[in-house]
C-alpha cells in the first residue's frame, strides 16, 4: 500500500489529507487535518500533516509522497510535487462527484470556474483578477454590516421573498448599496439573497465562458451557504453538488494526482515539473 499526503496551503487554513492506493480497488481516505496557516507555510504544512497522521493513527515515515497545492504550495520544502489549486480542485471534485463536468470555487478573494473532461482533467478555466468583485469577501462584509454571523447567512437568505439586486462591481462599494437598501427598509433576507443572486450572476457568466455542461460542483467557503447554492441552482438550472467537507477537496485532488506521479515515478519515469 502506497500512502500519499495532499496538502492544501491556503491563505487562511492549511489542510492535509492522507490517501492510500490499494493498487487494484481504488483509493481510500485515511485521515485529515486542518490548522491555521499563519505566516510560516513550512510549519503550517508540517502541523496539518501531523494532525492528519494523528487522525489516521499513522506516522510520518509511512508517507511515500507529498503533493502540495494552494497559494503556499512552493513554501513547503518537503514536497515532492506542487500542483495548482485549480488542477487539484477539479480532480478532487471529480473524485467525489464523477458526473460533474465543471467546478465553481468561490473563496475569500477569488472566484474560479473550471470545466473538465471525463477524467477530471481541466479543459478550461477562468479566474477573477485585479478586483475582488464577486468573491466571497462580498458576503463576509455584508454579514458584518448587517450584524449577522456568517454561519447564518445561508439560512437567512433562503427566507427571501423579494431579493434586491446589488449592482456595484466593488466588494467594498457594494456596502453603500446594501446600506441604501437597509435604510429603504428592505429586509435582511432580501438583501442577502440579492447578494447571492449577484454572485451567482457573475459566476454563471464565468461558467458559460469555460463552456458549462452537465453537473456542477461548488467548492470553497461559500459552498457552506444554502442560499448561495439555491441561487446558483436557479440561475444555472443545473444540479449543483456540494461536497460534505468542501474544505478538503483541493488537498484530496492533490493526493490523487500525487498517486499518479508516484506510479509514474515507480515505473521509472523521472518526476517532472518539480522546480
Amino acid at each position, binding site marked *: 500500500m502506497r500512502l500519499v499526503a495532499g496538502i492544501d496551503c491556503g491563505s487562511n487554513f492549511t489542510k492535509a489529507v492522507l490517501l492510500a492506493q490499494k493498487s487494484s480497488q481504488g483509493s481510500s481516505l485515511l485521515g485529515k487535518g486542518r490548522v491555521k496557516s499563519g505566516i510560516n507555510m513550512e510549519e503550517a504544512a508540517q502541523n496539518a500533516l501531523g494532525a492528519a497522521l494523528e487522525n489516521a493513527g499513522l506516522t510520518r515515515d509511512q508517507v511515500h509522497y507529498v503533493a502540495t497545492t494552494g497559494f503556499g504550495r512552493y513554501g513547503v520544502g518537503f514536497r515532492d510535487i506542487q500542483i495548482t489549486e485549480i488542477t487539484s480542485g477539479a480532480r478532487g471534485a471529480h473524485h467525489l462527484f464523477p458526473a460533474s463536468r465543471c467546478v465553481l470555487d468561490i473563496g475569500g*478573494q477569488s472566484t474560479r470556474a473550471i470545466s473538465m473532461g471525463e477524467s477530471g482533467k481541466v479543459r478550461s478555466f477562468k479566474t477573477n483578477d485585479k478586483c475582488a468583485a464577486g468573491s466571497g469577501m462580498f458576503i463576509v462584509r455584508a454579514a458584518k454590516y448587517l450584524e449577522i454571523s456568517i454561519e447564518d447567512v445561508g439560512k437567512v437568505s433562503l427566507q427571501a421573498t423579494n431579493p434586491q439586486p446589488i449592482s456595484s462591481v466593488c466588494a467594498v462599494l457594494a456596502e453603500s448599496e446594501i446600506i441604501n437598501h437597509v435604510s429603504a427598509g428592505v429586509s435582511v433576507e432580501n438583501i442577502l439573497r440579492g447578494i447571492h443572486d449577484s454572485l451567482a450572476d457573475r459566476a454563471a457568466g464565468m461558467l458559460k465562458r469555460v463552456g458549462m455542461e452537465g453537473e456542477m460542483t461548488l467548492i470553497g467557503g461559500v459552498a457552506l451557504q444554502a442560499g448561495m447554492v439555491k441561487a446558483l441552482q436557479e440561475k444555472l438550472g443545473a444540479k449543483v453538488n456540494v461536497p460534505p467537507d468542501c474544505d478538503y477537496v483541493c488537498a484530496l485532488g492533490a493526493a490523487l494526482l500525487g498517486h499518479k506521479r508516484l506510479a509514474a515515478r515507480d515505473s521509472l519515469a523521472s518526476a517532472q515539473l518539480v522546480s
Partner: protein
Amino acid sequence: MRIAAGVDVGSTQTKAVIMTDNGDRIILARALVDTGANVRKAAENAFLLACRKAEIPQTDVGFVVGTGYGRYNISFGNAQLTEISCHARGAHFVCPGTRTVIDMGGQDAKAISVGRGGQVLDFVMNDKCAAGTGRFLANAADVMGIGLDEIGPLSQRATRPVRIATVCTVFVESDILSYLAQGKKGEDIMAGVHLAIAKRTLSLARRVPIEPDITMTGGVARNIGMVRALEEVLGMKMQVSPDAHFMGAIGAAVFALEKMDQSFEFSAWRPEHAAGSGH
C-alpha cells in the same frame, strides 16, 4: 441668537455639529457615532448627542442641513447638500486660506479646488472602486492584526517600504500576507500601504489645480502616517485641523446659518429640490 446644525452621514461614521451665529460663527458642539446599518437612526443619534453636548433642546435648532451619501435618510433635515460643497465650505471656515481640499473618508477620496468665497471651483472623486480609501487602510490593519490608530505611527518607523501591487481593498490582504511570509517588517509593509494610497490619491488630485493652502479633511486625516505620506508625494505641507473629520458637518452647519440669515437663495432650500434625488 441663531442656532443651526449640520449632519454628515458617512459610510462608516456619522457626524453632527451645532453652530451658532451671534456676530461671529462658533461651533457649540460636535458628535460622532458609527453609521452601522440603520442610517436614519445614526443621523438622529448623532444630532441628539450634539444637542445634549451643546446643552440646548433640539427645538432651538433653527435649520438642519444634511450631507454625506446618507443625507436623504435624515428624517429631520431641512435641506441636503453634497459632501463636496460641505467639505469645501467647512475647510474654508476652519482654515480660511484653503484653496485645495483633499478628503479621505471610509469609501471615497476626493480633491476639491476651493475659491476665495469657499465655493467649489473644481472637484474629482474616486469611482466604482474603493481602491485607496480609508477602508483600504482599515483592511490592512485587520490583516496585520493591529488597531487602525496604530498603523500610522507604525509606518513612521519604516526603513525600506515595500511595493504594494494592488490598490484593491480586498486583494491588499494577500499582498500583505505574502510580504509577512517573506518576513518583511510590519512598519515597512504599512509604510508601503500608505505610500500606495498616497500616490493613488495624488494622481486623482492632480486632475484639479493643487494650490496652497491644502487642507486635508475626512477621518483618515487622523492618521499621521497618511498625512506624512501625502505630504511626501505632494512635496507640500497640508493643514490638518483637529476637526478634520467634522469638516463636512461643519460646512453643512455654516450653510444652514447662511440660509437662516438669508445670505442667498439656494435651490437646495426649496423643499421639492430633494425630489428626484431620493435613494
